């Protein structure tokens, strides 16, 4: 259903009149920009080089970085969850967890150790949010990973609740090594490509760089404010 637009004509006419011209009715082409410095950052870097950059950056953003082969992923994930004090855990509903061999850990081993694992289920409505609020660990998957800034990019949908990355006390992002790009420039291009191809944008796209923090009190950095208090990235060698 389309939303309402109110008071537009008078408002835009005033702008046009201040700019001393009639309202623009045709298409405005984006100019060919004279400067494009963002394209030069980490240009032509290999995936290995990007991983090195990411590793360095994680030290600055209070984030533990683990790298692992696919076979070792369950052991690594278990180790990180244990280091955060165990469950309850909340995750997206995503076929990749199974594809990456995490079923044994998530569906058998953890429950056996009475670590509660909740998989997002939109049919259960508000219960999802209550689960995320009580969780100790939230686990999601990075679709695009920005080496320069150490950022994971998430696209929401009915199986990928937004609050999984915000309400739990700690946060773990699984990062396929193939998802590494130089910087936010490439993510923006990809987002635009998806929009132009499908005519659709996810209602929420999150760029997450480490745990939440603030320097609002005497400029002292406090890690852990409204979002997660700790964050870890696990880079999976999928190449």
């Amino acid at each position, binding site marked *: 259903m389309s939303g309402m637009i109110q008071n537009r004509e008078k408002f835009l006419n005033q702008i046009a009149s201040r*700019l001393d011209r009639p*309202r623009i009715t045709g298409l405005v082409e984006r100019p060919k920009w004279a400067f494009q410095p963002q394209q030069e950052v980490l240009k032509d870097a290999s995936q290995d080089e990007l991983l090195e950059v990411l590793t360095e950056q994680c030290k600055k953003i209070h984030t533990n970085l683990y790298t692992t082969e696919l076979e070792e992923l369950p052991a690594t994930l278990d180790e990180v969850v244990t280091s955060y004090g165990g469950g309850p855990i909340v995750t997206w509903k995503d076929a990749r967890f199974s594809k990456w061999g995490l079923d044994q850990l998530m569906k058998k081993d953890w429950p056996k150790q009475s670590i509660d694992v909740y998989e997002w289920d939109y049919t259960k409505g508000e219960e999802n949010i209550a689960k995320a609020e009580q969780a100790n660990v939230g686990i999601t998957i990075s679709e695009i990973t920005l080496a320069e800034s150490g950022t994971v990019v998430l696209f929401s949908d009915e199986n990928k609740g937004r609050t999984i990355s915000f309400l739990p006390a700690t946060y773990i992002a699984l990062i396929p090594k193939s998802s590494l790009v130089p910087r936010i*420039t490439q993510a923006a291009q990809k987002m635009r490509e998806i929009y132009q191809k499908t005519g659709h944008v996810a209602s929420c796209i999150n760029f997450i760089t480490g745990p939440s923090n603030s320097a609002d009190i005497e400029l002292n950095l406090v890690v852990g404010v409204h979002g997660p208090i700790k964050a870890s990235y696990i880079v999976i060698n999928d190449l």
Partner: protein
Amino acid sequence: MAMKIGTDQFKERVDKGIHNSFMRGAVAGAQDGMGIKRRLATEELGNWEDWRSHGEEIRQHVLKYLDYYLEQLSENVAKRGGHVFFAQTKEEASGYIRSIVQKKNAKKIVKSKSMVTEEISLNAVLEKEGCEVIETDLGEYILQVDDHDPPSHIVVPALHKNKEQIRDVFKEKLGYTKTSKPEELAAHAREMLRKEYLSADIGITGCNFAIAETGSFSLVTNEGNADLVTALPKTQITVMGMERIVPTFEEMEVLVSLLTRSAVGQKLTSYITVLTGPREELDVDGPEEFHLVIVDNGRSNILGGEFQAVLQCIRCAACINVCPVYRHVGGHSYGSIYSGPIGAVLSPLLGGYDEYKELPYASTLCGACTEVCPVKIPLHNLLHKHREIIVEKEGKAPISEKLAMKAFGLGAASPTLYKLGTKMAPAAMNPFTVGDKISKGPGPLKAWTEIREFPAPNKERFRDWFKNRDKGGK
């Protein structure tokens, strides 16, 4: 809170600022710390000037075609089921938001940091409706808990408060029992605010950059509060200044990169969130209803005129962090939520010369602000332009300057008076002179000597010295 903060006159505000030694130390420390971080973050790119030029060309293009991009934005928001309200005045903006609050019968509202909602006095309007309005940015939360103390910095609003003061406020108002450690204070705020996000009826945010092509907008934070404000309440209202818009994700990315590096020296902040419309049909979190309020409130009067470049601003506060005047007088001296060089340019434009005629003089015109601006706003030139208008068109030059100029004009117009004046000066100033300095001057000198010394007039006038020299004197 409106754009104007406090009722003191400019001089009294400055006087309070200059004598607040904690604030001055905090501001100096903040300027040094953030200044160094900004410099490192911009230098490491190696071609910062190209980045600035790109930022400038994007902002100039958007302003030139602003009506086009706002139309495109509103169409795309509506397509996604969001409602768009164009508000020419602050009353229209707050009135529309009040009508939503009434329709929803809302009692509790959570907000993430937004300068434009301060500009339209939104909190006061909603509180009058009987709503509880809760700021969730840690700095703004502290100020709100402390009986709405005004912000003193665009990015770090509670910069003027020390942690002991914050502890005392929390103790008194929130039943806080722990120490003044920032970690413990922040943890307490986290705990208090968690309950509020989960029980609020409406979430209100500002907007860093709207994206015309997709009807999206982005929010830039470190604390994660904006994400909870937009994920949990059923209704979301986003308020944007009409110029905060870019054509596509690609330009958004550039401006976000300029913003985070210039503001805090971060490559990106912890959270950059791009939201489009309300939640989708099967989504569990995110708002069911989304309203975008686009605010003019005096901005269109700046368009097409000699101050248009100020609308390029992306609110990074880099200019504030290098300003030598801000360093000494602090944010409250500006009497506006917009402080520092950008505030001195913008406040008179949005709030009028009657209220803010002193601000363009709160500058040494050193140009440090212009040099660091990531979108190349010629800030010190605009300050100079304000002064020209104040003196020539408005006739509102500061009274002491007017008197001094008038006296000089009279004296210098007649050779006899001039001779007399220069002869009398040393004797007249004698009672105020210690050594060769005047540190407590009378009349028009008072304003000067309140903050620095003035050299005492030389006993020998130039003309006498020159005459003597002809006679073989030295």
